[in-house]
């Protein structure tokens, strides 16, 4: 059962109930995994920061389940749901947070900086907007190699749209007509800075016209809407219609990181439609439509919790990186390491 869910589905998900249920289960797993990370952080088991996707799971999962294994995905910090949907295992997520030597980053990088480039899953760097052109590069190279029918997706927050890297890369993708889906989570705050101090246009989606690309807006708290809009954007890119900019409005339901109490968030947001918890909204819809029942959801939840706890227990027993065994070089060409020549 769990394995089935872990397997990336791939392709555009047409059937609403199935897509909804699939996305919901990734959202649920991501939310529970996030809660575990937050608990581990508060227990002193995680060094550095913990960054949660609370409130952004619907958007992220909708993107993840619309990608195939052959696609390219460069998620950002709040894309736990999308990562799981793209095929990341819970144990690798835990390993990266806990710095396990068996994790994909081997303790050399941590928390949300994780990926597997060879599988088209690009590990983010912290500099915002920097991953967009890298996704462009993979798509560009694949086109040179004659590979078609694939897309590349990457995620940003509203703050990252203010960077030069964002502009350069989106323009580059437009010039090259690359199958890029750029998903912006306009979650009202970049760390503590409200959007009024970030941009002055009505909607970030309006910017698409300036780049000569398609722009889409969506309510990020509504999974059904996200599935529809993101699905359409992915399908357009896959069909060769060039870059797609998707802007979702939502509210970050947590601090920037677990070190941040988010006291600066305007209370009016919390009671507005933007402040809805997308997980709850999705769950209500499922129950209301009777796509499944509460008992089944409870089973999914307990299964996810068990898997997460097993993963944490396993990773705790895994060897930490050994500074004496570490290969202290940043070069892959061994003969060019000084002292080796």
């Amino acid at each position, binding site marked *: 059962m769990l394995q089935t869910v872990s397997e990336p589905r791939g392709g555009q998900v047409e059937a609403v109930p199935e897509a909804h249920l699939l996305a919901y289960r990734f959202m649920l797993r991501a939310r529970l995994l996030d809660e575990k990370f937050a608990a581990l952080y508060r227990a002193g088991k995680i060094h550095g920061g913990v960054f949660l996707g609370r409130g952004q799971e619907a958007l992220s999962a909708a993107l993840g389940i619309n990608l195939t294994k052959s696609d390219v995905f460069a998620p950002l910090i709040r894309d736990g749901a999308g990562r799981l949907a793209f095929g990341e295992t819970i144990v690798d997520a835990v390993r990266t947070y806990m710095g396990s030597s068996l994790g994909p980053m081997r303790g050399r990088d941590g928390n949300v900086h994780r990926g597997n480039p060879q599988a088209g899953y690009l590990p983010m760097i912290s500099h915002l907007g920097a991953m967009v*052109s890298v996704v462009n*590069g993979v798509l560009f190279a694949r086109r040179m190699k004659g590979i078609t029918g694939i897309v590349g997706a990457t995620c940003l927050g509203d703050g990252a749209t203010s960077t030069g890297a964002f502009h350069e890369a989106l323009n*580059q993708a437009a010039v090259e007509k690359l199958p890029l889906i750029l998903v912006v989570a306009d979650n009202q705050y970049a760390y503590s800075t409200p959007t009024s101090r970030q941009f002055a246009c009505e909607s970030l989606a309006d910017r698409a016209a300036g780049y000569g690309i398609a722009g889409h807006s969506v309510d990020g708290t509504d999974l059904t809407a996200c599935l529809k809009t993101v699905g359409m954007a992915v399908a357009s890119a896959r069909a060769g219609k060039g870059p797609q900019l998707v802007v979702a409005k939502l509210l970050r339901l947590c601090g920037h990181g677990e070190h941040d109490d988010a006291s600066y968030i305007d209370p009016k947001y919390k009671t507005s439609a933007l402040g809805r918890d997308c997980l709850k909204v999705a769950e209500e819809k499922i129950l209301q439509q009777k796509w499944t029942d509460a008992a089944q959801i409870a089973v999914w939840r307990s299964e996810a919790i068990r898997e997460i706890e097993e993963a944490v227990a396993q990773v705790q027993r895994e060897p930490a990186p050994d500074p004496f065994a570490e290969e202290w070089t940043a070069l892959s060409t061994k003969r060019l390491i000084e002292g080796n020549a």
Partner: protein
Amino acid sequence: MSLTYLDAICEAQAHALRDDPRVFIYGQDVGAFGGAFKATKNLAKDFPGRVIDSPISEDAMVGLAVGAAIEGMRPIIEMQFADFSTVGFNQIVNQAATLFWRTNISCPITVRLPFGGTSGGGPFHSQSLETIYAHYPGLIVLTPATVEDAYSMLLEAVAIDDPVIFCEHKFLYRHLKAEKLPSEALPIGKARIAREGRDLTIVAYSAMVQDALEAAGELATEGWEVEVVDLRSVKPLDTDTVMASVARTGKLLAVGESWPWGGVTAEVIARVTSEGYGLLDAPPQRLNAKDTPVPYHPNLWAAHRPTVRSIGAAARKILRH
């Protein structure tokens, strides 16, 4: 036949494009126009679809190269001037340079930086940036000083699995000529004894090697035998060859065209002083550009960077110590 340093760079790229289908060139004006310096002359015609004009977006240029490298390609990025690479700095030092360390996936990109002073270039078309790139782990920084090295080192750079910053000196582009392209070369990472001597070691790289050789020639008429070490690559830095030379001469002058604070000359002196303290019969010295932006007027420009004359003067001080 006579080939310039620039011809060698163009030839090396043609060679790489011919030999390896994974190679492509991406940069501003590199396509049909053949590049601001003509370093990609005719390549777009000879290799259709593989020599591609980019928007004026240095950050996205390098980012694209990293993505393509992840996908198994071997992109060559031409920065129109080294100075503009600072706009793409983040992608070079944080994306390209960290990729292998973080993910175990290598990042075989070559970023070509036309660098160094030519008279009239001014503050933003004359910079020497090898130092700041050498500072970052994960990068290879090459500084060829001869036509032969420009060719063979660029070919090797494209073949290397790590990101390479290829610093090609704009003054040498057309001022340096050779009869033919080399059929063999020292590997990257090995310095070259450009001139043998027993009284003083001058360590230089790129265009400064040529100036140092000229200064050594003048000093020879005064009876001094000056050894000139051409570093070829500033990272990796061939400490062994430098140390062996200082062991022969006991005296060291490091010359670099970049600014004085930190940098390659400081690194050379730090290594010789800490690992070869007992070899030194005089305090090691270094000669760099002045600590100001590169000036525009030829008089100021010529006084800003080390010259044959100032290298000779510095050498004499050490020799008479």
